[in-house]
């Protein structure tokens, strides 16, 4: 069952390194160029419910992730890509999921990742005049 799921994701995203986190939860690492393409492929394969968009500060790079699920039945895919830490820019998922709007705003606010194409790149949880992005590992507090 889990193996079938893994093979299914591998055939959907041939350019990705895929491994299982747990039963029916897969993690796929894709190159940056395929960020939007992976989202479109997964959405058309039934993973239509966007769970979240976020990021991880890896000290010498930044990893952007999104997770999507099947609204009927079982299965979760987390897709991640590595981007430059000094100029973290990535195309916005808003063209694929309308619901990405605030997830990307939050990621911008807390990690400083700029989503190109998102119409509303303002801070959301912190005040507008805040300096810095708190979830970066070198943030002084």
């Amino acid at each position, binding site marked *: 069952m889990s193996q079938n799921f893994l093979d299914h994701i591998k055939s959907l995203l041939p350019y990705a390194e895929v491994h299982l*986190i*747990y039963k*029916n*939860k897969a*993690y796929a690492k894709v190159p940056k160029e395929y960020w939007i393409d992976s989202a479109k492929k997964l959405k058309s394969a039934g993973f*239509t*419910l*966007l*769970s*979240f968009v*976020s990021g*991880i*500060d890896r000290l010498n790079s930044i990893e952007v*992730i999104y*997770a999507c*699920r099947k*609204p*009927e*039945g*079982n299965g*979760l895919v*987390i897709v991640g890509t590595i981007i430059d830490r000094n100029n973290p820019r990535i195309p916005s998922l808003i063209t694929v*999921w*309308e*619901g990405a*709007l*605030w*997830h990307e705003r*939050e990621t911008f606010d*807390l990690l400083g990742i700029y989503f190109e194409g998102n119409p509303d790149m303002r801070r*959301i*949880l*912190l*005040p507008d005049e805040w300096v810095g992005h*708190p*979830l970066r590992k070198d*943030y002084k*507090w």
Partner: protein
Amino acid sequence: MVNMQQEVRTLTINVGPQHPSTHGPMDVIVTIEGETIINADIRLGYIHRGIEKLCETRYYFQIPAYLSRLCYVSGMFWEYGFVRAVEEIMGVKVPERAQWLRVISCELTRIASHLIWLAAYAADLGLLTGLSWGLRDRDRIIDALEMLTGQRMMFTYMVFGGVRYDMPAGFQDTVEKSLKYVESHLPDWEKLTIENPIFRARTENLVPVSASYAIELGWTGPMLRACGVKRDLRRDEPYDVYETLDFEIPTGKRGDTLDRVYVRIEEIKQSIKIVRQAIKRIPSGPYQHRALLYPPPGIGYGYVEDSRGECGYFVVSDGTPRPYRVKIRSPAYVHVMSLPKLIKGIKLADLYAVLGSFDPCLGEIDR
């Protein structure tokens, strides 16, 4: 025919941050023209405590105590999601009695959370009777939870590999009494809300959302079920012993505000059914694993069906006693995101009916 050149006057007003219908400090900035909302924006962050950052600086076993503060009316789920994510990285099999105790405590919390929502929502619509009824009924459930966990709100009941305390003697009777009490008032609740013509007039056909649009927005939980999608993580991606339990998933038809009320009242009934089954079937045995300190390097995603939707934790562990990154996926955040778009074109007085029906819990939205 009279041709009148009218001056169009718009007015921008703040609904919040201190407003009873926002259920917490949230600012809805609406631009109105006459009484019609033509534009809206939301300002958040009034109670942002930086819990995600805080988690990175604490030991694993300290963290659940912070997380029950995420949503002060359904704290149990928020501890539970994190504990599940960490257990997934550890690869722990939770003892069966602990799984049943988790189901009982979570379903009791769901009843309490829906009741306090009903209370607050009734008050939003001017039904102050509902406010006192909701608090009265919820109190009995909280009494049962207090007996189990020693706390009335911030439970800190979930630990890695089980639960903190076993069931005390006489717990079954207390739960049964509480459930009977709540159940005896549910017909009154229905008369007060979904069968009440005044209540219906204010909520029926207000901001209907189609199933496909709700999925596009990322809605989960009762909000999605009200749109007619039979989606419940307890049934679709079962965890613990939910597979073996018998319960229904109530769904709405039109996805309007009335359906959201209907679905939540039905969910209270289903939760009562689940707790009754669980209390009968709970096996004896150990209720926690000992000596679990921290997980090996890896990633985990723990989810539970919260009273608002999918509560999820994405945890990255680097093998140290503190997590490297904790991402909290809050369902109410996603629901509130769609609010500015949905309320365009409705009357200002209807805003409170819509906003309340989203069940915004600012603790989890702001984090």
